[in-house]
Structures are given as structure tokens and as C-alpha cells.
């Protein structure tokens, strides 16, 4: 392959953010905050569930963050951010009115269309519920297009649950089965205790006609995919969302390489079938 230079058109600057303003914040847990952003030029950001943006904090830096919700028409972009470094600290401590630069969205998201007509099992671990929240909202908005829908959610402790109010609402519905489990709990926890895979045997789904969308620590995703595989689900029907260091989000910086794939461009969502072999290699 030779690049024909005359055909190259420098399109819009791929690394140029647009200014967005924080319009609302909600504290989720001790270290995690949900923020609603609005583009200052009034033009909302159109995204698909599972895509991410790059958020730039003035003078501090830029990080990839999954889109957790929003609506381009209403000019609302929702992100849930866990404070684990300088940039995420800056985002989590921002007040309404603070401006950030946001570019994107990037990446290939969850298979919302391919999942139509069958059962859907959504499995989230910890902060992994954030990129799956738009999936759940989409499923519920188009409920008739899907079979049985379940959400299995595991966290470390009840204090680490995201979107508690929404979880309660979803639990109260008859068209989605919601199971929540934690690794450990003090008194006053009425939910489950144990690994999220334990919940797989309790829900109704057809292992041979299901799409699973799984996001959480890599080991958790691997264990979920393995258990579902043992129950008869094809690894190409189990989708996982991968994460690696990322600087540019457009395939130039090289950081997010995962074997032959650039997670920013070829992912972040992959079928388990595509990444299974790689998930057996450490430090890849």
C-alpha cells in the first residue's frame, strides 16, 4: 500500500477539542462524580453507547472517559469520572460553570443493533457500569426490540455503587431483571454478596440467543465470558470493553495498542472471541 499524497485531505484537526461547560455534578461515591457537560457553542455531541471522549482540563492534561449518557439534541453530555490521577482529580473537583475541552466521540461501541431480537445480559463491575448506562437506557427506550433483559452489577462494597437512584428505578420495573452483588458488606446491606458470575445462574436468558455486554476489570470480564461460554454462549456473542493508556484517541500515539488493535479506533468494544487469546497473555 502506498499512500497517494495528492488524495490526502487534511480534515478537521483531529486533536482539537471544543469547549464544554459543566452544568451539573452529582457525587456517586467517595472518589467518583457524574458530570453533565454542555457545549458552549450549543451544538451537542452525538454518540453511540460505548464510545468515549477525550476530556482536557486546562493546563493539567487530557484523559479518555466513556460517555455515560446525554442527548445531543438537548446539548447534554454525561460522564462519570473516578478520581485516580491529576486530570481526573481536576474533573471530579470541578463545579458547575467550569470549562473543559472535549473532543470525540471515538471508538466502536456496543452492538445495540446486532443484539435486537435476542436476550441481552449486561454485566458491569465497579466503574464499568458507566459505559453501560447508555446501553440500559437505550434498551429500556426500545424495550420491545429485545428479549429478556438483565443487568448484573458487582462492586466492592455498597458504598461503591453508581447511579443508586436509577438502580432502584430499574429494579422496580418488570421488563428488566436487576441483580446487584458486592464483595463485602457491612450491616444494612440487603443485596447479594459474592462474585458477579454467581448471578448468571439466577437470571432467565437463552444462552444460545443472547448478547452479553460486559465492562469491568479484565479478570472479571474474562470470568464472565468463560462462565457464559460454559453455559453455551458463543464467545462472539459476548462483548467486552477494553482499556489501555491513551493519548491521542485517533491511532497516532501508539499507546493503546493491544496486539494488532488500536483500542481507540478498533475498540474499545470487542467480541470476547476476538480478544480471548490475548487475554491469556500477561502484560500485553
Amino acid at each position, binding site marked *: *500500500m*502506498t*499512500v497517494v*499524497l495528492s488524495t*490526502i*485531505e*487534511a*480534515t478537521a*484537526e*483531529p*486533536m*482539537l*477539542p*471544543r*469547549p464544554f461547560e459543566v452544568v451539573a455534578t452529582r457525587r456517586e461515591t467517595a472518589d467518583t462524580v457524574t458530570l453533565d457537560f454542555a457545549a*458552549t457553542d450549543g451544538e451537542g455531541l452525538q454518540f453511540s453507547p460505548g464510545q468515549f471522549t477525550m476530556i*482536557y482540563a*486546562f*493546563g*493539567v*492534561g*487530557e484523559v479518555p472517559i466513556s460517555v455515560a449518557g446525554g442527548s445531543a439534541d438537548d446539548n447534554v453530555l454525561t460522564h462519570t469520572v473516578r478520581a*485516580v*490521577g491529576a486530570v481526573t482529580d481536576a474533573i471530579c473537583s470541578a463545579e458547575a*460553570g*467550569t*470549562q*473543559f*475541552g472535549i473532543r470525540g466521540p471515538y471508538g466502536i461501541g456496543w452492538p445495540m443493533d446486532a443484539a435486537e431480537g435476542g436476550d441481552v445480559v449486561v454485566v458491569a463491575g465497579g466503574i464499568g457500569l458507566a459505559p453501560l448506562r447508555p446501553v440500559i437506557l437505550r434498551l429500556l427506550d426500545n424495550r420491545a426490540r429485545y428479549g429478556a433483559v438483565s443487568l448484573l452489577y458487582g462492586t466492592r462494597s455498597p458504598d461503591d455503587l453508581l447511579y443508586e437512584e436509577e438502580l432502584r428505578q430499574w429494579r422496580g420495573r418488570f421488563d428488566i431483571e436487576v441483580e446487584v452483588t458486592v464483595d463485602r458488606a457491612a450491616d444494612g446491606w440487603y443485596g447479594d454478596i459474592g462474585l458477579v458470575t454467581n448471578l448468571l445462574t439466577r437470571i432467565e436468558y437463552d444462552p444460545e440467543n443472547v448478547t452479553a455486554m460486559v465492562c469491568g476489570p479484565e479478570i472479571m470480564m474474562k470470568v464472565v465470558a468463560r462462565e457464559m461460554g460454559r453455559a453455551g454462549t458463543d464467545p462472539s456473542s459476548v462483548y467486552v470493553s477494553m*482499556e*489501555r*493508556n491513551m*493519548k*491521542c484517541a*485517533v*491511532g*497516532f*500515539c*501508539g*499507546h493503546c*495498542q493491544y*496486539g*494488532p488493535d*488500536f483500542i481507540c*479506533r478498533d475498540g474499545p468494544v470487542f467480541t470476547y472471541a476476538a480478544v480471548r487469546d490475548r487475554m491469556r*497473555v*500477561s*502484560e*500485553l
Partner: protein
Amino acid sequence: MTTSQTKVVERVDLGILIDLLADSGYDVIGPTKQDQTIVYRPISAIDDLPIGWTDVQDGGSYRLVRRDDSALFGYVVGPHSWKSYLFPPRSVLLTIENVDGELIFTPPDAPDRRYAFIGIRACELAAIAIQDRVFLGSGQVDTTYANNRAGLFTVGVNCAVAGGTCFCASMKTGPRCLAGYDLVLTEVLDESTHHFVFEAGSDAGGEVLHQLPGRDATEADFARVAAIVDDTAAHMGRSMDTRRVREDIYTNRDSAHWDRVAERCLSCANCTLVCPTCFCSTTEDTASLDAALGQRERRWDSCFTLDFSGLHGHPVRETPTARYRQWLTHKLATWQDQFDSIGCVGCGRCITWCPVGIDITHEVAAIRTRSEVPA
């Protein structure tokens, strides 16, 4: 505009080429001798070239020594590659004005210049073609690279000597310049003559060639050129067998040899910095003390640093084993999946500039050995 396809130019007239390019508005860059190495810097005359010098290279070793003649291009490649100009070690991505909390993002203006690279080797033309695919040919267009690349004029050199760590012949990228040049020259030097056989590779090259004094090249001239490059190809310091190299590397992902390399590897990143195809970068953010102005810069990064794979404060590739495996696997295997070509051109820089002399040709041979044993 009239063009010429070939020409034989005498040594005394070669300076005209630099003048022509400079007068046409090019920033002319060429090999120069600096700090006992040959590096690519702006040149304004033939005398800026490393006349009469050659380089002696081996694993972890580079020495400039005097030749017994006055060849202009009688050496191979040094620690710098042309990527320093097209994909600079540092470049500004954005400036950010902060007006009472209101952020205004501005990309830098496109630079008003065109480069002319004089003395670019076959392996380096191949390297540019590879970086073209990375920065221009895979969806998004990298603005910095595209701006620097626009209007580039290249004068290739068919290598008349092979370096101790060269293996372009086995990588099929050289020693004869194959594509991507505007002009290519072969230096012909013996007791009776010192001249350059030029061929044009583009209309722009043909126009420049037409303006150079000289005579048309003959069959005899081309026979001499062929003899020179054949002799160079026959004296490569190293070689690499690329057949099935991707499959072999994937098959041997758990080879014990990765650990043996890692025991020597210092994770210094020299190999990635001297590599003409390595493209990884990171970003750096700064702000003025009064927080009125911010800047995002891009700078070269290396998969050998711990930071490179850092995720939530913890590196994914913690061991040098994993980092070396990432680099070599990318260069020779995953690169093929990503960009339909191998990521190595056989220039040998990573071997020469490795402080402990780790040799990609030896290591890949050792890593794939097991898969060559019949089951």
C-alpha cells in the same frame, strides 16, 4: 516546463543542486558531521557534507573514520533519521487561552516552508512510505506530519557502501532507492573520475535535473550504477528472514528468549528514538503561571518506558521482557496487521545505538527457532 530523466553531473557542478533547491524556496537538509556522528541538518553548500568520512558500525558501536578518498556520500546512516523533520521530537498541538475560565483552543498555523532532503537513503525512503501510512493513510490525517510532508523534495542516494549493521537487502528496501524520490543519485568515484549518475523519479525532479549541467547517462553509466549497488547488497552486515516472521512471533509469544533479551535490555529507549518508523508519542500540558495561556505539546515517546502503558497509576507492561516483546512484536508482526507492511526497513540503527548491542536480527532468529523445529 522541460524535464530531464537522467544526467551525469560532475563533482564540481553538484553544488548547483543545493543552490537550485534553496533558490526555489526549499529548506535544504542534508548529512553533516557533528559530535563525531553524521546527522541531518540544514546545509547551504557541498562543503557542509561529511566529505571524505565514513562510519564503522556494529552492535553498540559507531565510529567515524577518514576515508582515503573525498566521497560525499561514503557512509550510511547515523543516529538521526528524517522523521525528526516530518514528525518532530516535539511539536505544539494546541494553544489554549483561558479568559476568566472561558477556554479558546487554537491549533498552530501551518508552517510556511518546504523541505528538500538531500542524501536520503533507500531504507529511509521506505521508512517515510511507512510513516505516510501511519499518519496519512489510516483514516485520520495527522496535521503536523501532513504539513511537514507537503511539498517535500527528496534527493535519494543509492548506497555505495554497506554498513556493519545494515540489512536493507534482506528487507527488500535497498540498497537501491526504489520509490518515493524526486531525484536519485549514485556516486561514482575512482582515480580518474568523480561524478554522479542522476535519475528523476518525478516531474519536479525532472525539472530540477534539467537545470543541472551535465550529459545524458548512457548504458555504461547504468551498468556502473548496477555494479555499485550489487556490490553493496553483497556486503550487508546483517540479514533478516522475513518469511512467516509474523506467524513465528505470534507462535512464540511465550518463548524463554524474551527473558534472555530482557536481562540485557536497559529499557533506555534508544532503539525507538533512532528508529525511522517508530511513531509513538505522548502529550505534555503546560500553563503559564497566571493560568492565562496553556499549551499542549506532543513529544516522542517509547514503549520501553514504564509510563507508556500506565493505567490508573500502574503500568500494564511492568517487566522489560514485556516491553521488548511489545516493541519487536509491533515492528515485525502486528505492524503488518495494522498497516499492511512490516515496520522495519533494515537500517540497522537500533543495533548500532543499543548500548548493549541487542541485535534485532539475532533476537528474532532466536525467538523463532523453536517454531522451526519440526513437531
